[in-house]
Protein backbone atom coordinates (compact mmCIF):
# COMPACT_ATOMS: atom_id res chain seq x y z
CA UNK A 1 0.00 0.00 0.00
CA UNK A 2 1.72 3.18 -1.09
CA UNK A 3 2.32 5.82 1.55
CA UNK A 4 0.02 8.80 1.27
CA UNK A 5 2.32 11.41 2.69
CA UNK A 6 5.79 12.64 1.82
CA UNK A 7 6.63 13.37 5.41
CA UNK A 8 5.81 11.88 8.80
CA UNK A 9 3.54 11.52 10.71
CA UNK A 10 1.99 8.64 8.83
CA UNK A 11 -0.75 8.21 11.42
CA UNK A 12 -3.76 10.42 11.67
CA UNK A 13 -6.39 10.94 14.32
CA UNK A 14 -10.12 10.71 13.73
CA UNK A 15 -10.84 14.40 14.07
CA UNK A 16 -12.40 15.75 10.87
CA UNK A 17 -14.12 18.99 9.92
CA UNK A 18 -17.20 17.24 8.55
CA UNK A 19 -17.53 15.15 11.72
CA UNK A 20 -17.38 18.26 13.87
CA UNK A 21 -20.07 19.99 11.81
CA UNK A 22 -22.32 16.93 11.93
CA UNK A 23 -22.14 16.73 15.69
CA UNK A 24 -22.85 20.42 15.93
CA UNK A 25 -26.03 19.96 13.93
CA UNK A 26 -26.98 17.02 16.13
CA UNK A 27 -26.56 19.21 19.20
CA UNK A 28 -29.05 21.69 17.76
CA UNK A 29 -31.84 19.14 17.30
CA UNK A 30 -33.37 19.39 20.80
CA UNK A 31 -33.49 23.16 20.53
CA UNK A 32 -35.14 23.03 17.11
CA UNK A 33 -37.79 20.70 18.46
CA UNK A 34 -38.38 23.18 21.28
CA UNK A 35 -38.76 26.02 18.78
CA UNK A 36 -41.30 24.04 16.79
CA UNK A 37 -43.18 23.27 19.99
CA UNK A 38 -43.29 26.88 21.10
CA UNK A 39 -43.44 28.83 17.86
CA UNK A 40 -44.87 26.48 15.30
CA UNK A 41 -43.36 24.74 12.31
CA UNK A 42 -42.33 27.82 10.37
CA UNK A 43 -38.74 27.52 11.55
CA UNK A 44 -38.47 24.20 9.72
CA UNK A 45 -39.57 25.81 6.48
CA UNK A 46 -37.06 28.62 6.91
CA UNK A 47 -34.37 26.08 7.74
CA UNK A 48 -35.05 23.91 4.71
CA UNK A 49 -35.07 26.93 2.43
CA UNK A 50 -31.86 28.20 4.01
CA UNK A 51 -30.05 24.86 3.61
CA UNK A 52 -31.06 24.51 -0.03
CA UNK A 53 -30.00 28.05 -0.90
CA UNK A 54 -26.76 27.72 1.09
CA UNK A 55 -25.66 24.53 -0.61
CA UNK A 56 -26.49 25.80 -4.09
CA UNK A 57 -24.73 29.11 -3.47
CA UNK A 58 -21.71 27.28 -2.08
CA UNK A 59 -21.56 25.04 -5.15
CA UNK A 60 -21.88 28.07 -7.43
CA UNK A 61 -19.14 29.98 -5.64
CA UNK A 62 -16.81 26.97 -5.66
CA UNK A 63 -17.29 26.64 -9.39
CA UNK A 64 -16.65 30.34 -9.96
CA UNK A 65 -13.49 30.16 -7.85
CA UNK A 66 -12.25 27.01 -9.63
CA UNK A 67 -12.22 24.90 -6.51
CA UNK A 68 -13.16 21.21 -6.40
CA UNK A 69 -16.65 20.53 -5.07
CA UNK A 70 -15.82 17.30 -3.31
CA UNK A 71 -14.14 18.20 -0.06
CA UNK A 72 -15.68 21.64 0.33
CA UNK A 73 -19.34 21.00 -0.33
CA UNK A 74 -19.44 18.02 2.00
CA UNK A 75 -17.64 19.58 4.94
CA UNK A 76 -20.94 20.80 6.35
CA UNK A 77 -19.95 24.37 7.07
CA UNK A 78 -22.56 25.90 4.75
CA UNK A 79 -25.29 23.80 6.32
CA UNK A 80 -24.26 24.93 9.78
CA UNK A 81 -24.38 28.59 8.72
CA UNK A 82 -27.82 28.05 7.22
CA UNK A 83 -29.20 26.32 10.30
CA UNK A 84 -27.83 28.92 12.72
CA UNK A 85 -29.25 31.76 10.69
CA UNK A 86 -32.62 30.02 10.42
CA UNK A 87 -32.77 29.66 14.19
CA UNK A 88 -31.84 33.31 14.67
CA UNK A 89 -34.44 34.64 12.23
CA UNK A 90 -38.02 35.31 13.36
CA UNK A 91 -40.51 32.53 12.64
CA UNK A 92 -42.44 34.68 10.19
CA UNK A 93 -39.42 35.58 8.09
CA UNK A 94 -40.54 35.87 4.47
CA UNK A 95 -38.72 33.66 2.00
CA UNK A 96 -36.83 36.54 0.45
CA UNK A 97 -35.41 37.55 3.82
CA UNK A 98 -33.89 34.12 4.29
CA UNK A 99 -32.60 34.01 0.73
CA UNK A 100 -30.95 37.44 0.89
CA UNK A 101 -29.42 36.57 4.24
CA UNK A 102 -27.97 33.28 3.08
CA UNK A 103 -26.70 34.71 -0.18
CA UNK A 104 -24.89 37.48 1.65
CA UNK A 105 -23.51 35.09 4.25
CA UNK A 106 -22.14 32.56 1.79
CA UNK A 107 -20.98 34.87 -0.97
CA UNK A 108 -19.74 37.94 0.85
CA UNK A 109 -19.01 36.84 4.36
CA UNK A 110 -17.41 33.55 3.42
CA UNK A 111 -16.25 33.06 -0.15
CA UNK A 112 -15.12 36.55 -1.00
CA UNK A 113 -12.77 36.36 1.97
CA UNK A 114 -11.32 33.10 0.66
CA UNK A 115 -13.75 30.39 1.68
CA UNK A 116 -13.65 28.04 4.65
CA UNK A 117 -11.13 29.09 7.21
CA UNK A 118 -10.35 32.50 5.80
CA UNK A 119 -13.31 34.61 6.89
CA UNK A 120 -12.70 36.95 9.80
CA UNK A 121 -16.38 37.46 10.61
CA UNK A 122 -18.97 34.87 11.51
CA UNK A 123 -21.10 34.52 8.33
CA UNK A 124 -24.38 33.80 10.11
CA UNK A 125 -23.99 36.90 12.27
CA UNK A 126 -22.99 39.07 9.33
CA UNK A 127 -26.17 38.01 7.55
CA UNK A 128 -28.27 38.58 10.65
CA UNK A 129 -26.93 42.07 11.15
CA UNK A 130 -27.37 42.94 7.48
CA UNK A 131 -31.00 41.86 7.61
CA UNK A 132 -31.62 43.57 10.92
CA UNK A 133 -30.36 46.89 9.66
CA UNK A 134 -31.93 46.68 6.20
CA UNK A 135 -35.30 45.18 7.09
CA UNK A 136 -36.00 46.16 10.69
CA UNK A 137 -39.74 45.60 10.44
CA UNK A 138 -39.57 42.02 9.25
CA UNK A 139 -36.75 41.23 11.63
CA UNK A 140 -38.56 42.43 14.73
CA UNK A 141 -41.87 40.84 13.89
CA UNK A 142 -42.00 37.86 16.20
CA UNK A 143 -44.78 35.39 16.82
CA UNK A 144 -46.10 35.04 20.32
CA UNK A 145 -45.67 31.65 21.90
CA UNK A 146 -48.18 29.09 20.62
CA UNK A 147 -49.91 28.68 23.93
CA UNK A 148 -50.53 32.40 24.16
CA UNK A 149 -51.56 33.06 20.63
CA UNK A 150 -55.17 33.03 19.62
CA UNK A 151 -54.17 32.19 16.10
CA UNK A 152 -51.40 29.57 16.24
CA UNK A 153 -49.98 28.86 12.83
CA UNK A 154 -50.09 25.42 11.33
CA UNK A 155 -47.75 24.29 8.61
CA UNK A 156 -49.91 25.21 5.65
CA UNK A 157 -50.63 28.73 6.80
CA UNK A 158 -46.96 29.10 7.74
CA UNK A 159 -46.00 28.08 4.21
CA UNK A 160 -48.55 30.42 2.80
CA UNK A 161 -47.28 33.32 4.86
CA UNK A 162 -43.62 32.73 4.22
CA UNK A 163 -44.00 32.39 0.49
CA UNK A 164 -46.99 34.58 -0.20
CA UNK A 165 -46.70 37.23 2.43
CA UNK A 166 -50.23 37.24 3.65
CA UNK A 167 -52.64 35.33 5.76
CA UNK A 168 -56.30 35.17 6.35
CA UNK A 169 -55.80 37.44 9.31
CA UNK A 170 -53.49 40.46 9.21
CA UNK A 171 -49.98 40.55 10.68
CA UNK A 172 -50.85 42.77 13.61
CA UNK A 173 -52.98 40.23 15.33
CA UNK A 174 -50.40 37.55 14.84
CA UNK A 175 -47.15 39.21 15.69
CA UNK A 176 -45.71 40.55 18.90
CA UNK A 177 -42.46 41.62 20.48
CA UNK A 178 -39.89 39.32 22.05
CA UNK A 179 -39.55 39.24 25.82
CA UNK A 180 -36.20 41.06 25.59
CA UNK A 181 -37.76 43.72 23.44
CA UNK A 182 -40.73 44.09 25.76
CA UNK A 183 -38.52 44.27 28.85
CA UNK A 184 -36.34 46.96 27.29
CA UNK A 185 -39.23 49.11 26.06
CA UNK A 186 -41.22 48.90 29.26
CA UNK A 187 -38.26 49.64 31.49
CA UNK A 188 -37.80 52.67 29.30
CA UNK A 189 -41.37 53.58 30.14
CA UNK A 190 -40.44 53.45 33.82
CA UNK A 191 -42.15 50.17 34.64
CA UNK A 192 -40.67 47.99 37.38
CA UNK A 193 -39.04 44.81 36.09
CA UNK A 194 -40.71 42.71 38.76
CA UNK A 195 -44.07 43.99 37.55
CA UNK A 196 -43.18 43.49 33.90
CA UNK A 197 -42.31 39.91 34.70
CA UNK A 198 -45.88 39.20 35.72
CA UNK A 199 -47.03 39.49 32.12
CA UNK A 200 -48.08 36.28 30.40
CA UNK A 201 -45.24 36.36 27.88
CA UNK A 202 -42.71 35.79 30.66
CA UNK A 203 -42.13 32.35 32.10
CA UNK A 204 -40.26 31.16 35.17
CA UNK A 205 -37.11 33.17 34.83
CA UNK A 206 -36.92 34.21 31.17
CA UNK A 207 -39.38 34.70 28.36
CA UNK A 208 -42.01 31.98 28.07
CA UNK A 209 -40.82 29.41 25.58
CA UNK A 210 -37.56 31.27 25.14
CA UNK A 211 -36.19 29.94 28.40
CA UNK A 212 -36.82 26.37 27.29
CA UNK A 213 -35.17 26.96 23.96
CA UNK A 214 -32.17 28.41 25.73
CA UNK A 215 -32.07 25.46 28.12
CA UNK A 216 -32.07 22.97 25.26
CA UNK A 217 -29.39 24.98 23.53
CA UNK A 218 -27.34 24.77 26.71
CA UNK A 219 -27.88 21.00 26.77
CA UNK A 220 -26.66 20.82 23.18
CA UNK A 221 -23.69 22.91 24.21
CA UNK A 222 -22.92 20.49 27.03
CA UNK A 223 -22.99 17.65 24.51
CA UNK A 224 -20.45 19.51 22.36
CA UNK A 225 -18.24 20.04 25.41
CA UNK A 226 -18.43 16.36 26.27
CA UNK A 227 -17.47 15.40 22.73
CA UNK A 228 -14.57 17.89 22.84
CA UNK A 229 -15.87 19.69 19.75
CA UNK A 230 -15.63 22.97 21.62
CA UNK A 231 -13.61 23.87 24.68
CA UNK A 232 -15.17 25.35 27.80
CA UNK A 233 -13.27 28.63 27.67
CA UNK A 234 -15.44 30.70 25.35
CA UNK A 235 -18.91 29.70 26.60
CA UNK A 236 -17.94 30.00 30.26
CA UNK A 237 -16.21 33.34 29.69
CA UNK A 238 -19.14 34.73 27.76
CA UNK A 239 -21.76 33.65 30.25
CA UNK A 240 -19.58 34.85 33.09
CA UNK A 241 -19.08 38.24 31.47
CA UNK A 242 -22.77 38.63 30.82
CA UNK A 243 -23.88 37.50 34.27
CA UNK A 244 -21.26 39.48 36.15
CA UNK A 245 -22.15 42.79 34.58
CA UNK A 246 -25.83 41.98 34.84
CA UNK A 247 -25.46 40.99 38.50
CA UNK A 248 -23.58 44.14 39.36
CA UNK A 249 -26.15 46.43 37.77
CA UNK A 250 -29.00 44.41 39.22
CA UNK A 251 -27.62 44.74 42.73
CA UNK A 252 -26.94 48.43 42.29
CA UNK A 253 -30.24 49.32 40.62
CA UNK A 254 -32.81 46.52 40.80
CA UNK A 255 -35.70 48.74 39.90
CA UNK A 256 -34.46 49.42 36.40
CA UNK A 257 -32.62 46.21 35.49
CA UNK A 258 -33.82 42.71 34.78
CA UNK A 259 -32.27 39.84 36.72
CA UNK A 260 -29.14 38.03 35.47
CA UNK A 261 -31.16 34.84 35.08
CA UNK A 262 -33.44 36.65 32.67
CA UNK A 263 -30.52 37.71 30.55
CA UNK A 264 -28.98 34.26 30.58
CA UNK A 265 -32.11 32.53 29.35
CA UNK A 266 -33.47 35.04 26.86
CA UNK A 267 -32.73 35.94 23.33
CA UNK A 268 -29.65 34.54 21.68
CA UNK A 269 -27.51 34.08 24.79
CA UNK A 270 -27.11 30.30 24.76
CA UNK A 271 -27.04 30.10 20.98
CA UNK A 272 -24.30 32.70 20.98
CA UNK A 273 -22.34 31.16 23.84
CA UNK A 274 -22.19 27.58 22.60
CA UNK A 275 -22.71 27.71 18.86
CA UNK A 276 -21.82 31.10 17.46
CA UNK A 277 -18.97 32.47 19.54
CA UNK A 278 -17.25 29.08 19.47
CA UNK A 279 -16.98 29.05 15.66
CA UNK A 280 -13.28 28.14 15.40
CA UNK A 281 -12.60 30.11 12.24
CA UNK A 282 -13.56 33.47 13.71
CA UNK A 283 -12.78 33.02 17.39
CA UNK A 284 -9.49 33.57 19.21
CA UNK A 285 -7.15 30.59 19.19
CA UNK A 286 -4.97 30.86 22.29
CA UNK A 287 -6.37 29.73 25.63
CA UNK A 288 -6.10 33.08 27.34
CA UNK A 289 -7.31 34.70 24.17
CA UNK A 290 -10.48 32.61 24.23
CA UNK A 291 -11.25 33.78 27.74
CA UNK A 292 -10.78 37.42 26.75
CA UNK A 293 -12.83 36.90 23.57
CA UNK A 294 -15.72 35.23 25.41
CA UNK A 295 -15.76 37.79 28.20
CA UNK A 296 -15.77 40.60 25.67
CA UNK A 297 -18.80 39.16 23.92
CA UNK A 298 -20.64 38.74 27.20
CA UNK A 299 -19.95 42.30 28.32
CA UNK A 300 -20.79 43.84 24.96
CA UNK A 301 -24.02 41.85 24.72
CA UNK A 302 -25.20 43.24 28.02
CA UNK A 303 -24.14 46.77 27.17
CA UNK A 304 -25.97 46.74 23.86
CA UNK A 305 -29.04 45.16 25.40
CA UNK A 306 -29.36 47.74 28.13
CA UNK A 307 -27.86 50.91 26.74
CA UNK A 308 -27.78 50.23 23.00
CA UNK A 309 -30.41 50.64 20.37
CA UNK A 310 -31.30 46.97 19.82
CA UNK A 311 -33.06 44.57 22.13
CA UNK A 312 -30.49 41.79 21.62
CA UNK A 313 -26.79 42.49 21.26
CA UNK A 314 -25.31 39.04 20.68
CA UNK A 315 -24.80 39.45 16.92
CA UNK A 316 -23.12 42.84 17.20
CA UNK A 317 -21.00 41.74 20.14
CA UNK A 318 -19.74 38.73 18.22
CA UNK A 319 -18.85 40.81 15.17
CA UNK A 320 -17.01 43.43 17.22
CA UNK A 321 -14.98 40.79 19.03
CA UNK A 322 -14.26 39.06 15.71
CA UNK A 323 -12.56 42.29 14.68
CA UNK A 324 -10.38 42.21 17.79
CA UNK A 325 -9.27 38.58 17.42
CA UNK A 326 -5.88 39.19 15.72
CA UNK A 327 -4.98 41.68 18.46
CA UNK A 328 -6.10 39.31 21.21
CA UNK A 329 -4.15 36.41 19.71
CA UNK A 330 -1.01 38.48 19.43
CA UNK A 331 -0.97 39.50 23.08
CA UNK A 332 -1.98 36.18 24.62
CA UNK A 333 0.65 33.79 23.25
CA UNK A 334 1.70 31.03 25.67
CA UNK A 335 5.35 30.90 26.68
CA UNK A 336 7.31 28.31 24.75
CA UNK A 337 9.18 25.42 26.45
CA UNK A 338 12.57 26.56 27.56
CA UNK A 339 11.84 30.24 27.09
CA UNK A 340 14.03 32.33 29.31
CA UNK A 341 12.02 33.95 32.05
CA UNK A 342 12.37 37.70 31.78
Amino acid at each position, binding site marked *: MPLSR*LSSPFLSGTNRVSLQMLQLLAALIPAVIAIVYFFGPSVLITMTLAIVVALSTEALMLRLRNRPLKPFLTDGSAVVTAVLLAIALPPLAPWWLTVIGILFAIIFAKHLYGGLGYNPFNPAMVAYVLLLISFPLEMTTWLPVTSLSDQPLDISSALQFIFNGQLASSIDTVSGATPLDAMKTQIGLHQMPAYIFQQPMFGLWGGKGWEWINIWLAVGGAFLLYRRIISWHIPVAMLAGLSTLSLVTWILAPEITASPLFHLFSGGTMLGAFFIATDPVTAATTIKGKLVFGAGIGLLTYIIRVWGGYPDGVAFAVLIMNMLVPLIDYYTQPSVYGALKK
Partner: protein
Amino acid sequence: MFTAILAITLLALILGLLLGFAAIRFKVEGDPIADQIDKILPQTQCGQCSFAGCRPYAEAIAAGEVDINRCPPGGEATIHALADLLEVEFKSLDEECGVEKPKMLAVIDEDRCIGCTLCIQACPVDAILGAAKHMHTIIASECTGCELCLPPCPVDCIDMVETKPNANTWRWPDPAHIDLKLGAQP
Protein backbone atom coordinates in the same frame (compact mmCIF):
# COMPACT_ATOMS: atom_id res chain seq x y z
CA MET B 1 -12.87 83.80 10.91
CA PHE B 2 -9.81 85.95 10.63
CA THR B 3 -8.48 84.63 13.90
CA ALA B 4 -9.04 81.09 12.64
CA ILE B 5 -6.93 81.71 9.54
CA LEU B 6 -4.24 83.35 11.64
CA ALA B 7 -4.22 80.50 14.12
CA ILE B 8 -3.91 77.81 11.45
CA THR B 9 -1.18 79.69 9.61
CA LEU B 10 0.80 80.13 12.81
CA LEU B 11 0.41 76.45 13.62
CA ALA B 12 1.56 75.47 10.15
CA LEU B 13 4.61 77.70 10.45
CA ILE B 14 5.60 76.28 13.83
CA LEU B 15 5.17 72.67 12.70
CA GLY B 16 7.04 73.37 9.50
CA LEU B 17 9.95 74.80 11.49
CA LEU B 18 9.94 71.75 13.75
CA LEU B 19 10.04 69.40 10.77
CA GLY B 20 12.85 71.34 9.18
CA PHE B 21 14.83 71.26 12.40
CA ALA B 22 14.27 67.52 12.72
CA ALA B 23 15.34 66.96 9.11
CA ILE B 24 18.66 68.67 9.79
CA ARG B 25 19.28 67.47 13.36
CA PHE B 26 18.45 63.79 12.75
CA LYS B 27 19.81 63.46 9.24
CA VAL B 28 21.33 60.06 8.56
CA GLU B 29 24.48 59.97 6.47
CA GLY B 30 24.54 57.67 3.51
CA ASP B 31 21.53 56.05 1.98
CA PRO B 32 20.17 53.40 4.36
CA ILE B 33 17.55 52.25 1.87
CA ALA B 34 20.24 51.44 -0.68
CA ASP B 35 22.11 49.46 1.98
CA GLN B 36 18.99 47.48 2.83
CA ILE B 37 18.32 46.76 -0.83
CA ASP B 38 21.93 45.71 -1.34
CA LYS B 39 21.59 43.27 1.56
CA ILE B 40 18.71 41.56 -0.21
CA LEU B 41 20.40 41.30 -3.61
CA PRO B 42 22.34 38.05 -4.18
CA GLN B 43 25.74 39.72 -4.83
CA THR B 44 26.36 37.75 -7.99
CA GLN B 45 27.77 40.95 -9.60
CA CYS B 46 26.78 39.58 -12.99
CA GLY B 47 25.44 42.75 -14.59
CA GLN B 48 22.34 41.11 -16.06
CA CYS B 49 20.32 43.96 -14.58
CA SER B 50 22.34 46.25 -16.90
CA PHE B 51 24.15 47.86 -13.97
CA ALA B 52 27.82 47.35 -13.15
CA GLY B 53 27.23 45.14 -10.11
CA CYS B 54 24.69 44.83 -7.33
CA ARG B 55 25.49 48.05 -5.47
CA PRO B 56 24.78 50.38 -8.44
CA TYR B 57 21.50 48.54 -9.04
CA ALA B 58 20.59 48.93 -5.36
CA GLU B 59 21.28 52.65 -5.52
CA ALA B 60 19.22 53.00 -8.67
CA ILE B 61 16.27 51.26 -7.03
CA ALA B 62 16.65 53.48 -3.97
CA ALA B 63 16.55 56.54 -6.20
CA GLY B 64 13.35 55.19 -7.76
CA GLU B 65 14.87 55.07 -11.23
CA VAL B 66 14.35 51.40 -12.02
CA ASP B 67 11.99 48.51 -11.37
CA ILE B 68 12.66 45.86 -8.78
CA ASN B 69 12.27 42.94 -11.17
CA ARG B 70 15.60 43.02 -13.01
CA CYS B 71 17.62 40.45 -11.06
CA PRO B 72 17.54 36.90 -12.53
CA PRO B 73 19.94 35.25 -10.04
CA GLY B 74 17.87 36.59 -7.18
CA GLY B 75 14.73 35.26 -8.76
CA GLU B 76 11.22 35.58 -7.42
CA ALA B 77 12.30 35.34 -3.80
CA THR B 78 14.40 38.50 -4.14
CA ILE B 79 11.65 40.41 -5.95
CA HIS B 80 9.22 39.47 -3.18
CA ALA B 81 11.68 40.61 -0.53
CA LEU B 82 12.24 43.92 -2.34
CA ALA B 83 8.52 44.43 -2.79
CA ASP B 84 8.01 43.89 0.93
CA LEU B 85 10.85 46.23 1.87
CA LEU B 86 9.79 49.07 -0.40
CA GLU B 87 6.06 48.37 -0.02
CA VAL B 88 5.43 48.22 -3.73
CA GLU B 89 3.61 45.72 -5.92
CA PHE B 90 5.31 42.46 -6.77
CA LYS B 91 6.23 42.19 -10.44
CA SER B 92 7.40 39.02 -12.15
CA LEU B 93 10.94 38.86 -13.46
CA ASP B 94 11.66 41.05 -16.50
CA GLU B 95 12.24 38.58 -19.33
CA GLU B 96 14.76 40.74 -21.16
CA CYS B 97 17.16 40.65 -18.19
CA GLY B 98 17.31 36.88 -18.15
CA VAL B 99 15.60 33.85 -16.68
CA GLU B 100 15.79 32.30 -13.25
CA LYS B 101 18.22 29.39 -13.41
CA PRO B 102 19.37 26.94 -10.73
CA LYS B 103 22.62 27.84 -9.03
CA MET B 104 25.59 27.06 -11.29
CA LEU B 105 29.32 27.18 -10.74
CA ALA B 106 32.00 27.85 -13.33
CA VAL B 107 34.63 25.18 -13.91
CA ILE B 108 37.78 25.57 -16.02
CA ASP B 109 38.76 22.67 -18.28
CA GLU B 110 42.44 22.48 -17.42
CA ASP B 111 43.39 20.70 -20.64
CA ARG B 112 42.35 23.67 -22.73
CA CYS B 113 43.41 26.63 -20.50
CA ILE B 114 46.24 28.71 -22.03
CA GLY B 115 46.95 30.94 -19.04
CA CYS B 116 45.98 34.27 -20.61
CA THR B 117 44.53 35.86 -17.38
CA LEU B 118 41.62 37.41 -19.27
CA CYS B 119 39.11 35.58 -17.08
CA ILE B 120 40.91 36.62 -13.89
CA GLN B 121 40.52 40.23 -14.85
CA ALA B 122 36.84 39.72 -15.61
CA CYS B 123 35.79 38.01 -12.35
CA PRO B 124 33.99 40.55 -10.11
CA VAL B 125 34.74 38.68 -6.87
CA ASP B 126 38.33 37.54 -7.64
CA ALA B 127 37.34 33.90 -7.50
CA ILE B 128 39.86 32.76 -10.11
CA LEU B 129 43.34 31.81 -9.01
CA GLY B 130 46.22 31.98 -11.48
CA ALA B 131 48.91 34.01 -13.18
CA ALA B 132 50.15 34.65 -16.68
CA LYS B 133 51.30 31.43 -18.44
CA HIS B 134 50.22 29.48 -15.33
CA MET B 135 47.18 27.27 -14.88
CA HIS B 136 44.00 29.06 -13.87
CA THR B 137 41.48 27.53 -11.51
CA ILE B 138 38.19 28.69 -10.06
CA ILE B 139 37.74 28.74 -6.29
CA ALA B 140 34.40 26.93 -6.16
CA SER B 141 33.36 28.26 -2.74
CA GLU B 142 33.72 31.89 -3.94
CA CYS B 143 32.17 31.55 -7.40
CA THR B 144 28.76 33.29 -7.61
CA GLY B 145 27.80 31.88 -11.00
CA CYS B 146 27.68 35.28 -12.73
CA GLU B 147 29.15 33.94 -16.02
CA LEU B 148 31.23 37.07 -16.67
CA CYS B 149 34.32 34.89 -17.21
CA LEU B 150 32.81 33.03 -20.17
CA PRO B 151 32.94 35.72 -22.90
CA PRO B 152 36.59 36.85 -22.41
CA CYS B 153 38.07 33.33 -22.61
CA PRO B 154 39.71 32.98 -26.04
CA VAL B 155 39.65 29.15 -26.03
CA ASP B 156 36.18 28.79 -24.51
CA CYS B 157 37.44 26.47 -21.76
CA ILE B 158 35.00 27.51 -18.99
CA ASP B 159 31.80 25.52 -18.43
CA MET B 160 28.87 26.22 -16.12
CA VAL B 161 28.03 23.19 -14.01
CA GLU B 162 24.95 22.75 -11.90
CA THR B 163 25.66 22.21 -8.21
CA LYS B 164 24.64 18.80 -6.92
CA PRO B 165 22.76 18.80 -3.62
CA ASN B 166 24.16 16.61 -0.89
CA ALA B 167 22.52 15.29 2.24
CA ASN B 168 23.44 18.46 4.15
CA THR B 169 22.12 20.97 1.61
CA TRP B 170 19.01 19.08 0.50
CA ARG B 171 15.72 20.89 1.12
CA TRP B 172 12.27 19.46 1.71
CA PRO B 173 9.86 20.07 -1.22
CA ASP B 174 7.27 22.79 -0.78
CA PRO B 175 4.05 21.18 0.53
CA ALA B 176 1.93 24.03 -0.83
CA HIS B 177 2.71 22.90 -4.38
CA ILE B 178 1.28 19.50 -3.61
CA ASP B 179 -1.92 21.12 -2.35
CA LEU B 180 -2.16 23.37 -5.37
CA LYS B 181 -2.69 20.46 -7.71
CA LEU B 182 -6.02 19.93 -6.02
CA GLY B 183 -7.08 23.52 -6.16
CA ALA B 184 -6.59 24.57 -2.57
CA GLN B 185 -5.52 28.09 -1.72
CA PRO B 186 -2.01 28.92 -2.96
